[in-house]
């Protein structure tokens, strides 16, 4: 309740700032739309050219893109500032200012990170998913709709876990770009069905960096796909995987904060 009130307060503050920097806000929204819209069309054109990928039709592949984008936008909406801005917080010493307040720094940073920019991602993602389901003539039953919501929640938690984990070295002022590259690069893989890759990639994206659970496995469920990899229960596993990973990521972040060294001044 405390953090919810704090969150509302910060939303108010961010909206006030947007009003005072209107131009830069709209420029940002348009830029985001253009760059993600380009990604959308690139995927679309590629799949159109192939007609199908390993039994996946263009709309089906596009659904992967939509789910990936939606869950990423949801994760980034809450965690982007915490994960990406942490380096600035450490260098500028603002993290010290947060640590002397009687708040959980993790929750405080989420509250503080309200970021309207992600509404453009979310609307683009929802739009994409609606097009796909319509194009495929699939109407989701209420149960399926709930499953979809839970899968996207789980997928968002996987994205969030990745964002949070890769931000920990920044708390220690070790700029490890490697982990960022790993994360942002791997994200591209899952815009296409996992079944088109060789076994090694499938193993990695299922068991090591389980991004497959963000789009491929849950999409199998909604599209009635039966090209199961490893085990037919995996399409149901996104939420538990997300919860598990996020828990680990949160513990790791707290571990990072406990070993925070500050900047000396």
């Amino acid at each position: 309740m405390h953090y919810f009130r704090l969150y509302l307060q910060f939303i108010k503050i961010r909206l006030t700032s947007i009003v005072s920097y209107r131009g830069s806000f709209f420029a940002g929204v348009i830029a985001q739309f253009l760059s993600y819209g380009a990604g959308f069309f690139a995927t679309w054109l590629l799949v159109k050219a192939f007609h199908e990928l390993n039994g996946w039709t263009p709309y089906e592949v596009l659904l992967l893109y939509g789910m990936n984008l939606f869950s990423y936008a949801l994760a980034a909406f809450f965690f982007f500032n915490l994960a990406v801005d942490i380096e600035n917080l450490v260098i500028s010493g603002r993290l010290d200012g947060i640590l002397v307040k009687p708040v959980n720094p993790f929750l405080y940073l989420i509250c503080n990170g309200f970021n309207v920019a992600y509404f453009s991602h979310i609307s683009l993602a929802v739009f994409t998913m609606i097009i796909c389901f319509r194009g495929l003539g699939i109407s989701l039953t209420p149960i399926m709709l709930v499953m979809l919501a839970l899968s996207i929640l789980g997928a968002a938690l996987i994205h969030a876990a990745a964002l949070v984990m890769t931000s920990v070295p920044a708390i220690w002022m070790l700029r490890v770009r490697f982990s960022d590259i790993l994360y942002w690069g791997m994200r591209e893989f899952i815009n296409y069905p996992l079944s088109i890759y060789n076994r090694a990639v499938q193993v990695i994206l299922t068991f090591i960096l389980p991004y497959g659970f963000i789009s491929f496995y849950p999409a199998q469920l909604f599209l009635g796909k039966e090209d199961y990899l490893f085990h037919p229960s995996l399409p149901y596993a996104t939420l538990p995987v997300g919860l598990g990973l996020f828990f680990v990521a949160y513990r790791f972040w707290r571990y990072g904060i406990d070993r925070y060294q500050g900047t000396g001044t």
Partner: protein
Amino acid sequence: MSYINVENVVKEFKVVRREKGLINALKSLFHREYDIVTAVDHISFTIDKGELVGYIGPNGAGKSTTIKMLSGILVPTAGRITVDGVIPHQNRKENARRIGVVFGQRSSLEWDLPMEETFDLFQKIYRIDDRMYKRNVEFYVELFAMQSFLKRPVRQLSLGQKMRAEIAVALLHDPEILYLDEPTIGLDVVAKNHIRQFIKRINSEKKITLMLTTHDMDDIEQICDRIIMIDQGKLLYDGFLQNFKEKYGGEYTITVDFAYAEEGREVDPRLQLVSIEGQRKVYVAHRSVIETTEALRYFIDNFDVSHLNIREADIEDVVRNAYVKG
């Protein structure tokens, strides 16, 4: 058991050793060497409730590191800290409710927000009840004369106004202890004086235990009852301001530009010559031996002087003195 206890505290930092050159940079990708830097080196002191303590020392002495350990941000490498029975880094949130912290070199205020709304935000962060909130906002707006700039966004405030705002916000939840890290840094003389008066009033009227770090000798002389001096992480002095002044203070430097080379002329032995640079000579003296006015008159009356400059001892001089005198 005192209110604040610091027992044999050590803080070491592991710093990556950086060497020049591309080859070394590439090497460090695979193998890093670390240096251990000891920022705080076996420091012990206690502070009682209601004290106003100046924690002083030159830049890099370990002042901020100590404040960060006291406020629970950093974990001591060795030793033990308790604040009102609580170990700050283990019970960071509990400790945070009782303390206010102001870092002079950085801001905890929201840049685009006027102070009115910043107060609201801090009410939510600290869960301050409405009555206390109202009373404290009124009290501090009055005390810090903030009425004139309450509605302006923080980014438009002057440095002095910002510092007042920072202190007010840190006091909103009625902390029992206030840590001020370099509260007068970068301010002009007038603003410094204001801040000093505010600090004294907070301590005397609100009975808040106050610890401030500074390397400004005027801060020390004008506000602190008690001085703890450190350098290179080690404690050099802990005692009353009066004793401190008698022991280390009172020294000053006179720089004299003689109109002619005053070769071979004896100068009053109470003035100790420390350096010669052409016709410019630098002397060090002590107030208890010869007052500044007398020293000035001595040079003007006895020599043909084109320029005179007097400088009071600053913290670096005092620290140097402390090493000499032990």
